[in-house]
């Protein structure tokens, strides 16, 4: 029942005629590269921060946790008014990097939360155990921590993608129309009269997260397979 309620609305998106809007397509380069860099930054910062929040004790880290979650509770769009003026002064306005930084505000707090939860679920003892087993930090991540945090990695990428795709106002303001992401093309289509063009835009909005999700799924699966093969090989050669 609930499944139907969730799914049926999406059926209306199946197009009767295939259309191709070149203007939408042109924004994809910026959109995808923005999402790629943003996701990467989210993973990097989220990983180290989530670990700290999960495994450090004391008053300081609790305050930091609160500060980090501020954008979840505050009006980010309204705060970006002030940031925009600053970005102009710093030469970041209308720039890719300026938009990138601002997009960290609505995404990073979620990312950090998800990594914190994942590390808490893993537990301190497991972390200590892994440190003892594999002292090299890179190897530890590649062989142990990374594969164990697969589901957190996946959720983070999904959430960052979906939030970033939805930002019309923020990107318009900070990007000044120069940084063209897909929302900037889709939004006017929705208020316009062409339902077909609007539908095409929506399909892109839905297909991109799915696509990114499944590409990542394959990559992660490949990663785990490689790790398994390497470990099996090591085990075999040690036995001989």
């Amino acid at each position, binding site marked *: 029942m609930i499944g139907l309620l969730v799914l049926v609305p999406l059926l209306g998106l199946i197009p009767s005629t295939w259309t191709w809007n070149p203007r939408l397509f042109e924004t994809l380069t910026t959109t995808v590269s923005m999402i790629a860099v943003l996701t990467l930054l989210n993973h990097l*910062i989220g990983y180290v*921060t989530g670990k*700290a929040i*999960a495994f450090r004790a004391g008053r300081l880290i609790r305050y930091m946790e609160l500060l980090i979650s*501020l954008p979840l509770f505050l*009006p980010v769009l309204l705060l970006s*008014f002030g940031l925009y003026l600053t970005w102009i002064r710093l030469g970041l306005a209308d720039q890719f990097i300026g938009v990138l930084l601002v997009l960290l505000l609505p995404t990073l707090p979620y990312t950090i939360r998800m990594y914190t939860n994942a590390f808490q679920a893993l537990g301190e003892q497991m*972390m200590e155990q892994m440190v003892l087993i594999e002292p090299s930090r890179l190897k530890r991540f590649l062989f142990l921590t990374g594969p164990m945090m697969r589901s957190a990695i996946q959720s983070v990428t999904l959430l960052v993608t979906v939030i970033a795709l939805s930002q019309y*106002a923020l990107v318009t303001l900070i990007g000044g129309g120069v940084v063209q992401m897909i929302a900037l093309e889709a939004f006017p289509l929705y208020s316009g009269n062409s339902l077909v063009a609007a539908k095409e835009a929506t399909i892109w909005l839905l297909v991109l997260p799915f696509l990114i999700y499944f590409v990542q799924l394959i990559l992660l699966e490949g990663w785990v397979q490689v790790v398994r093969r390497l470990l099996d090989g090591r085990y075999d050669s040690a036995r001989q």
Partner: protein
Amino acid sequence: MWRGNAWPATLLITGMVGYGLFVSLSMTTWEDYSRLFRDPVFLESIGISLYVAVSSTVLSVLIGAWLAGFFAKQTGWTAQVLAIPLFLPHLGAAYLAILYLSDLPVISPHEVNQFSIILTYLYKEIPFIFFYLLPVYRRLDHRYEELGLMLGLSRLKRFWHGKGVFLLFPVLEAAFIVFAFTLFAYEVPALLGVTYPKLIGVYTFDLYTQGDLSRQPEAFAISVLLTGILFLLLVIFTRTIRPLTERISKGRVE
């Protein structure tokens, strides 16, 4: 150093939030704030935004929490269907509302009752609440309730001591997040809302970006005011509930 480092994120986020607020503050005078409180358009916008945000939040928390409680006992993949709306950006969800609700009475977009906005939020936020609370429900220890039963507690007390106290903080926190989002969001109300009164996110953004620059200070003033109020709410919320959550997280049995 395997314990991670929270400094970069803290500095980055606090820096941007703090500086954004500081610049807004420096662009305004007392006069701007006092004018805000006399501006009927602003006040009406706040009223209608609160109506949308409170109804969306209450409904999605109630439904999402109920679903999480229901599915926490089930295994299997059925619950995963609820993940599908998570793949659709809010912008796309607003389009679904245009697509389906346009020809309907009462709930169609651009109606003063804002039902289409609320429905769009429900489509997106119920799954959010659901996945936020599902692990919380799964971690609940049913033995606390069994104990309550054997100690002869009433049904209400059993629920409160066995489940309620463990759910209280996560539920309120998720509600706060949804509330802040639905209160200030731009995209969904800009597409589905009426031209007057506008929801506060739309109203403020339009003040800032459109028309003459003379109204920009007003936009900055709204930014400072609302950020301040929400920050205050957040501080009160954390202050009141922190002792309880600390006791629970330290004293509960894992």
